[in-house]
């Protein structure tokens, strides 16, 4: 085979790898449709559930891509979502102001995110360590507020009529689209996104290329914070009450979703903003398909195992691809 043929083959393979997550999403969607219809369930109901779960995950994950691109990891995103929603609800109940509630949700979400990165920068520790601590602290405070003000099971809530007009697909798609396009623009068309990708690839080299590590880490956490704020708000629109378990699994789900979407787990220059969108919906589709296919008594455990196996397979395939491209040094 001549060099041109090898190059063509290589490029074909790369293109295939790039579109694989989208193909997987389409395949999962087709499997869901077939499964629901074969069981005689209502497809529109399932699609609505998947959309409502997927939109929150996709929004938070889109913001989180900025953190993952740096090769970092934030496990506190679920707790931040819960905490900001809790304080949002408390604010509304105290002031009856929707605007103030939204302001508090975003302020708290961005503040929590910033705190993680600033603490990491101040104490020179990996940022994921501070997010582990933040997860515990935020969950505990939120749970205490919820238990004290509304009870552990019932939780705290805002009047459903307040957000009912926003609980429709059009509004949610608009929110997701605007935020995703903003992130896409920052990520792919500004110096900020380019520097963050480079920083994730090799922080030492990035620093020696004049990229200020702390500055770009803070920007990444602010973007993630905005995603968390939007996620918390969308959660309240869907279910206007908050319990101690609200958004509990988002932190880990984001990691899995982003990898499903084709983003390398180590971040860096091959990070893609669409990974959050594609991976978020793929993950929710996969979970719902597994719930439909597997007996409900054992369903949760089995679907977690299947997701884990799928996750490992995706990470293995992507890392295998990288290793085979490296000349000996």
């Amino acid at each position, binding site marked *: 085979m001549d060099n041109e043929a*090898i190059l063509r083959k290589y*490029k074909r393979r790369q293109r295939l790898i790039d579109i694989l997550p989208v193909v997987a999403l389409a395949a999962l969607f087709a499997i869901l449709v077939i499964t629901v219809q074969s069981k005689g369930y209502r497809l529109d109901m399932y699609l609505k559930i998947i959309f409502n779960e997927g939109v929150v995950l996709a929004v938070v994950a889109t913001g989180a891509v900025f953190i993952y691109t740096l090769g970092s990891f934030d496990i506190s995103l679920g707790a931040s979502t819960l905490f900001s929603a809790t304080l949002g609800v408390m604010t509304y109940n105290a002031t009856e102001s929707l605007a103030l509630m939204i302001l508090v949700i975003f302020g708290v979400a961005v503040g929590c995110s910033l705190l993680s990165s600033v603490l990491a920068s101040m104490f020179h520790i990996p940022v994921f360590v501070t997010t582990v601590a933040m997860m515990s602290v935020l969950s505990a405070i939120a749970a205490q507020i919820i238990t004290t003000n509304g009870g552990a099971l019932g939780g705290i809530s805002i009047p459903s009529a307040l957000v009912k007009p926003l609980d429709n697909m059009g509004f949610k798609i608009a929110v997701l689209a605007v935020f995703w396009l903003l992130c896409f623009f920052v990520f792919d*068309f500004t110096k900020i996104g*380019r520097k963050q990708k*480079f920083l994730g690839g090799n922080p030492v080299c990035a620093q020696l290329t004049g990229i200020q590590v702390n500055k770009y880490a803070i920007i990444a956490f602010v973007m993630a914070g905005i995603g968390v704020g939007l996620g918390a708000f969308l959660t309240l629109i869907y279910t206007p009450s908050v319990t101690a378990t609200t958004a509990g699994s988002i932190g880990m789900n984001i990691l899995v979703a982003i990898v499903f979407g084709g983003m390398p787990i180590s971040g*860096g*220059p091959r990070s893609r903003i669409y990974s959050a969108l594609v991976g978020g919906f793929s993950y929710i589709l996969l979970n719902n398909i597994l719930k439909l296919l597997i007996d409900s008594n054992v369903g949760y455990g089995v679907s977690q195992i299947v997701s884990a196996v799928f996750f490992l397979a995706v990470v293995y395939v992507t890392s295998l691809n990288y290793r085979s*491209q*490296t000349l000996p040094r």
Partner: protein
Amino acid sequence: MKTPILEMKHIRKTFASTVALGDVDLSVYPGEIRGLIGENGSGKSTISSIAAGMQKADSGEMLYHGEAWDPDSMIEALSKGIGMIVQESGTIQGVSVAENLFLGETKQFPGKLGTIDRKAMNAKADEALQAIGVKNVSGATPMGALDFQTRKLVEIAKVVMKDPEILVVDETTTALSQEGRSILYALMKKLRDEGKAVLFISHDLDEIMEVCDTLTVLRDGAIIRHFTKDGFDADAIRTSMIGRELEGDYYRSDYTPSHLEEIAVRAEHISLGEALQDVSITVHKGEIVGIGGLSHCGMHPLGKILFGAVRPDSGQVVTGGGVKITGEAVAMKENFGYVSKDRDVESLSLSASIRDNIAIAGMEQYAVNNFLMLSSREKVYVDRQIADLSIKCADRDQQVSQLSGGNKQKVVFGKWIGRGSEVLILDCPTRGVDIGVKRAMYQLMTELKNEGKSIVMISEEMPELMGMSDRLIIMKDGKITHEFARSASLSDAEIIQYMI
């Protein structure tokens, strides 16, 4: 005719879109030091790394002592008799020297309750290091505390203590000082005299002609010619390597020191721990200032301080315009560029493309309003660097890790030159690059000097320092010991007395 220890037949290997080896045959005989020489990307490292178990060939056959040879790993290959010292870092930081030496073999030092007897392991490590002539490093020393050269010596000890039948030395000498090289040459000769073999890869033709008994020239993944010692001819070897006659000057052709009056940068009374003591230098516009010395003389940290990457304990770096260099971002703003000696770690993001690596430093050159990144403008910018520097690649989106050492270094140059750096700090700029690329880099440096740019060239290679510098500063033990002006009569002997 002796029977070869190792026979490699019809070896073929591709990396993604790159054909690294196409149908290569190579035999290694007992009692020989066989040199492998060729331009970057010719396939030297690939063929030797396949023999040493680092990776598998796509096709072909290998025989070791007449039996099929197909090691699954470098550890397996070493345990059976073929050991390799790799081009870049082959040690693990974060653990001790002894743990590096006995990686995967700590069971031979059983302690109490299933633990490791570290005292015994460290003592054995000390023995192994002393056996190859490394006296100032202990087994208990953390690997991260050692510099690049000493880490390489530890790596050499690790391979040699296994008493390999074939030792592969892949461009290791560029990381070593003269003392380190002497240690390695002695080891290689010892192995040869014992009827074993060495595969020696280097870009230094003088070194390879001095050390080797036989020589194999590779080009573009194929073997071009074999030479024996009595037929060594520098011109014939060069021509075989690059497939054409080298044209033009290698180093600068003039011997008159020259520069503009204007000062580009001044380092004033710089001190840094024991590495640097009250060092002051001034670099003018249009001047190449060479800094030389032994590896530990302080010149490498000085390069980082000039770029603001390391804060000195005292003293300051100031531009001709009076701006203090307090960090890398300030240095970049003042149009400084820095090429590190540790290319793969400090100068490149290996998982990124050529485009990403070149474009990252020059965004203000092509971004709209210094903010908006348009792919079309970026491509033009990157393609210009690829063309100007003749970077051998499939396309701009090729991953840098797929490139050979010389082409990687060209990408690093492209990154800094493309953005129009006025002051270039080059730490060992030609380390691990072939003769053709070296020549291109020297010509580029001369062009930059003529354009009024300033270059600080830190190097452990005397010929290039003498051949390129307007002024040559020699350092020893963190201090400047002498300064030479450019002259045709300057000799190695004159300089070395101020280094040692």
